[in-house]
């Protein structure tokens, strides 16, 4: 029973985790991309379409990543090169993604999908309880954890990470030191797009293997909230995504058990939990400020 719940939680949390880690890198570089939902849904539809046409789930995943990156490249061009307003451009990206995905996906409505195979890690997957939960997942679940580790290492242990954070914290100084702010931000934005596309592929190829319009149902926005929730720290994103997934799934179990708690209250629990944690975190103003990218959302035009 507990094992079953945990398995469901993992599938519910993984798309949030992947998308949020990508957005975290973007925001660390000082760019606020509100288009996560749009990039995710594009990843979902393109991933589904390619997997469906070629019969290969891996190709679908790659295509979804490319689609997410293409969307984010458009965003990067708008806000970094043309220096448009980031909030408005991000919203436009979401609207574009939702509309465009509906158009691309029209031919795939009602077509059964292809599910990514589960990877059984030899020996380890045989361990009772631990095995099925941790070592019999589809590849993207492992990828999500590798991603968090890699991003955390990159941000805090490498020179590249230091430059990225410098650009996000003070673009004028970073520029004065000779770093190309726009190039760093563009790379970060592309990475965010790739992650959002991957998260979308998880939705349409692993979570619910099908294409229906608007199937991400607001998960891109949740991922955005999770980044703030995690105060821009990768490992806290894991905690946030899994907390959100766990509360969602547990409310269904509580209802199926017939506990008699009003379902409207249960449905709002994940959001209430998010608010509660946000309040707790922001109570320590000093610590929050340490991690908040100081130049988040501020445009930068190189002065030469």
């Amino acid at each position, binding site marked *: 029973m507990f094992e079953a719940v945990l398995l*469901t939680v993992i599938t519910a949390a993984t798309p949030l985790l992947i998308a949020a880690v990508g957005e975290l890198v973007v925001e660390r570089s000082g760019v606020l991309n509100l288009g996560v939902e749009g990039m995710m849904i594009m990843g979902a539809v393109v991933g589904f379409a390619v997997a469906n046409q070629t019969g290969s789930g891996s190709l679908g995943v790659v295509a979804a990543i490319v689609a997410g990156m293409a969307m984010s490249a458009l965003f990067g061009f708008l806000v970094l090169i043309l220096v448009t307003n980031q909030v408005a451009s991000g919203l436009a990206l979401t609207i574009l993604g939702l509309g465009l995905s509906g158009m691309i996906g029209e031919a795939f*409505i009602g*077509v059964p999908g292809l599910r990514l195979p589960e990877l059984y890690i030899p020996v380890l997957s045989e361990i009772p309880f631990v095995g099925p939960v941790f070592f019999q997942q589809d590849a993207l679940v492992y990828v999500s954890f590798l991603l968090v580790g890699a991003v955390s290492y990159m941000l805090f242990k490498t020179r590249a990470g230091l430059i990225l954070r410098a650009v996000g914290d003070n673009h004028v100084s970073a520029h004065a030191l000779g770093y190309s702010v726009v190039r760093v931000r563009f790379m970060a934005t592309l990475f965010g797009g790739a992650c959002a596309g991957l998260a979308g592929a998880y939705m349409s190829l692993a979570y619910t293997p*099908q294409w*229906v319009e*608007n199937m991400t149902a607001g998960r891109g926005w949740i991922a955005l909230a999770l980044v703030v929730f995690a105060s821009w720290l990768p490992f806290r994103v894991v905690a946030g995504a899994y907390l959100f997934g766990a509360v969602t799934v547990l409310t269904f179990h509580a209802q*199926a058990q017939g506990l008699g708690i009003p*379902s409207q209250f249960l449905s709002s629990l994940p959001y209430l939990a998010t608010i509660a944690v946000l309040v707790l975190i922001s109570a320590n103003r000093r610590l929050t400020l340490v991690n908040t990218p100081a130049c988040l959302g501020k445009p930068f035009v190189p002065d030469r």
Partner: protein
Amino acid sequence: MKSILRGAVAALALTAAGSVAQAADLKACFVYVGPVGDFGWSYQHDQGRLAVEEHFGDRVETAYLESVPEGPDAERAIERFARDGCGLIFTTSFGYMNPTIKVAKKFPDVKFEHATGYKTADNVATYNSKFHEGRYIIGQIAAKQSKTGVAGYIASFPIPEVVSGINAFMLGAQSINPDFKLKVVWVNTWFDPGKEADAAKALIDQGADIITQHTDSTAPLQVAQERGVHGFGQASDMINFAKDAQYTAIIDDWAPYYIERVQEVLDGKWHSHSAWDGISEGHVVMAPYTNLPDDVVEMAKATEAKIKGGWEPFTGPITKQDGTEAAADGVRLEDGAILGMNWYVKGIDDKLPQ
């Protein structure tokens, strides 16, 4: 902040839906709660719209707005249609009831049709289908086929339409197995494939081997297919998503009604009414019975025939959850009582959200 953003998104989405110059005799417009590609509720309404286009050709022009949130946004969407020269506007979700009535007051010359509601006016008709007839049949099938004797029901919102569906399912099941158990999970959304799938998994993990839903995506049925349990399609035939899992589906066929009403407007014979048709009129259609033994198929077809012959699934004896009598033996519940149902029948293992 998020809700402001969402509002902005909705507003932009509304302005994005452009209108075309008018040449036809009538412009029939449709407001959908979900995307037309949901392969469920809104998809079926759109199939009805396409049928209207096909039937009338150039005489009737159609337009639609999809994913319109229930509530104030809906009012703007409906009013926009009214201003744009729509002569007949179908608002296809329960939550559009008050907005429809409000806009209808401002535009007395425009005719409105609101699905699944209960408020009418001189220029507002309501229409609905007796989905509960289909749900009675699938309840019977569930009780025949379940090994654990437990079914899981994924419900959207506690409105009469959904509640009567749950009750009809349970009455059908009890007619076969009086001890049948039903677990209900409210997901508080019409459409979120991820959540619906999670709810289906939770129900299966708790012993349900039949999954049925009153939400719009194919995700629960897909989970049933993967987990080796069974279920029923909702709104459209979902057999492609669950070849081994789907027993049948309750299909909403709005085309006959839409064509009829458009014709009446063209002929000047349109009147406000409250239409409520079901299996007999072909507005509710059972998808082919699959993955079932012959005797169960026969039973289902017999019940279908009985309903076509005028029998109502909500015929007594019906006992409410609190033990009071809803209908005595042989007494048929009045239409109003079914359309406004806010109580569970005895035996449902859930507390109805108020």
